[in-house]
C-alpha cells in the first residue's frame, strides 16, 4: 500500500510520519481543520498532534492547520486533479490511491437542491484503509459448508473493519479456495486501484471493476467475467439490492458488506428487511469496534425458514 504521508503537505506529513513509526497500524483517522490543531484517531482514542508527531491530550503545543495546508494537501491527495473527483465529491468524500477515504467539509455548492461540490474546503478527515493480511483466516471456516463458500454479508458500524475483512476474504477466496472472484469496487476502497490496477493484495484470481456503480458493476461482471464469487462493499441502495438478487439467482456466490450495528437493526432497514427475511444470505458476520476494529460480535447462519441462528 502506498505511503500515507505522501497525501499531506510537509509539516503534516512529518508529524504523520512520526506517528506511523510509533503507532503503525493503530492510526485510523487524520483530521485537518482550518485554524484548528491537527487531530488523529489512534486505537479508538482522539488525540492532538505536535509538529514532531507526539500525541497530545490537549490542543496546547499541537500543530495548527491553516487553509493553505488543507489546499496543499488536497493537491497531493488528488494528484493535482480535483476536477477528476467531482462526481465523488457530491457524496462529500473522495477515495484516493490506496483506498483511503477523504471526507470533506466546507461551504457546499448546490444546484437544483442537490449538492454538486464543496468550495472552499475547510476540513478533511482522512480514514486510513488498512490491509491486514490474514485477518479473515479464522473466519473463513465458518463461511464454508462442505468446502463451498456461502453467500456472506459482513455487517458493522463505520470504522468496524468490514472493508478490511472483506478485502482479506476476497484474497482467501481467490488464493486459498481457488475461486474466480470479481469485485465491483465503486469507490476504489477494496482494491485501492491506481490506473485500474489494485494496489492492495486481492489474490491471483481476482478481477476488479473500479469506479463503476455497484449495481451496474455487479451485473456487468456477471455477464462479462464469468466469476464464481462477486464481492461488493457497503450495499445500501435499492438498485444494489436488486442486483444482489440477480447475482444470487445466477449461481454466483456473494461477499458483501453493509452498515449496521446489529443484525436486528439491519433487518429493520428498508430493502434489507426483505432480503434477510427471505434468508438470501447464508452467513452473516457482525463486527464492531468494541475491542478494536474487526471485533467479531457474532456469526449467523441461515437456519430453518430463513431465520438466522448464531454459530
Amino acid at each position, binding site marked *: 500500500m502506498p505511503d500515507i504521508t*505522501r497525501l499531506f503537505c510537509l509539516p503534516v506529513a512529518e508529524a504523520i510520519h512520526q506517528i506511523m513509526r510509533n503507532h503503525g497500524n493503530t492510526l485510523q483517522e487524520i483530521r485537518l481543520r482550518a485554524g484548528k490543531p491537527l487531530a488523529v484517531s489512534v486505537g479508538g482514542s482522539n488525540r492532538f498532534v505536535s509538529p514532531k508527531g507526539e500525541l497530545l491530550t490537549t490542543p496546547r503545543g499541537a500543530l495548527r492547520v491553516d487553509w493553505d495546508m488543507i489546499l496543499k494537501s488536497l*493537491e497531493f491527495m*488528488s*494528484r493535482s*486533479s480535483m*476536477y*477528476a473527483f*467531482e462526481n465523488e465529491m457530491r457524496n462529500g468524500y473522495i477515495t484516493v490511491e490506496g483506498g483511503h477515504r477523504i471526507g470533506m467539509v466546507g461551504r457546499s455548492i448546490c444546484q437544483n437542491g442537490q449538492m454538486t461540490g464543496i468550495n472552499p474546503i475547510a476540513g478533511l478527515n482522512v480514514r486510513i484503509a488498512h490491509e491486514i493480511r490474514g485477518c479473515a483466516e479464522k473466519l473463513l471456516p465458518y463461511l464454508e459448508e462442505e468446502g463451498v463458500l456461502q453467500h456472506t454479508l459482513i455487517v458493522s458500524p463505520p470504522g468496524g473493519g468490514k472493508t478490511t475483512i472483506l478485502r482479506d476474504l476476497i484474497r482467501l477466496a481467490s488464493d486459498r479456495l481457488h475461486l474466480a472472484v470479481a469485485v465491483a469496487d465503486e469507490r476504489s476502497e477494496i482494491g485501492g486501484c491506481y*490506473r485500474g490496477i489494485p494496489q492492495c493484495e486481492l489474490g491471483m484470481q481476482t478481477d476488479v471493476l473500479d469506479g463503476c456503480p455497484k449495481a451496474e458493476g455487479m451485473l456487468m461482471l456477471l455477464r462479462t467475467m464469468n466469476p464464481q464469487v462477486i464481492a461488493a462493499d457497503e450495499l445500501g441502495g435499492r438498485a444494489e439490492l436488486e442486483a444482489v438478487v440477480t447475482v444470487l439467482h445466477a449461481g454466483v456466490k456473494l461477499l458483501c458488506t453493509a452498515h449496521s450495528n446489529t443484525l436486528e437493526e439491519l433487518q429493520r432497514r428498508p430493502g434489507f428487511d426483505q432480503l434477510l427475511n427471505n434468508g438470501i444470505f447464508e452467513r452473516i458476520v457482525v463486527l464492531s469496534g468494541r475491542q478494536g476494529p474487526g471485533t467479531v460480535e457474532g456469526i449467523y447462519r441461515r437456519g430453518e425458514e430463513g431465520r438466522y441462528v448464531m454459530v
Partner: protein
Amino acid sequence: MLWFKWTGILLIGAGLACIGFWLAYRLDRRLEEYRQLQKVLMMLSSRMRIGEPMELAMESCVMAGAGAWERWLRHMAERLSKREALSSVWREELDKAKSELHLEKEDYRMLETLGNSLQGARLENCLGLISQVQDYFHAQQRMLEQAISEQGRMYRSIGVLAAILVMVVLA
C-alpha cells in the same frame, strides 16, 4: 592577401544571409509551436472531460504526439506522478522549456496563468480556462500567419540583399 580578403567578405555575406533566414525560421517555428500547443490543449481538455487525472491526460497527449511540447508534458507527468504540486511543476518545467521554444513573453505569461488556475478548479472552470487560452493562441496563430506571409519573405530577401551589398562594398 586577396584570398584572405575574399574569404572574409564571403563569411560576412553568408552571416547576414543566415540572420535573415534565421529570423524567418523563428517565425515558422513559432507558428508550428502555436499549432501544436492548440492540439495539446484540445487533447488535454478532452482527456480531462472524461475524468482522467492530469498526469495521465498529459501522458496521453505525449503519446498522441505533442511535437515541441512533448518534453515539457512528459516531465510534468513524471513529476506529478511523484505527487508534486501542479502549479509549481507547470511553472518550473515551462521555464526549462523556454530555451527550446520560440514564443513571446505574453504567451508564456498566458500559459503560466493557466497552470496556476487549473489547480483545484472544477472541471467546468478548467475546461473554460483551457478554451480561453486556446482562443488566445488561435488569434496569435492567425496574426503570425499574416506576419509570416509578409515578413518571412522580407527577412530572407533583406538577408540576401544585405549580404550582396556588403560583398559589393567590401570588394
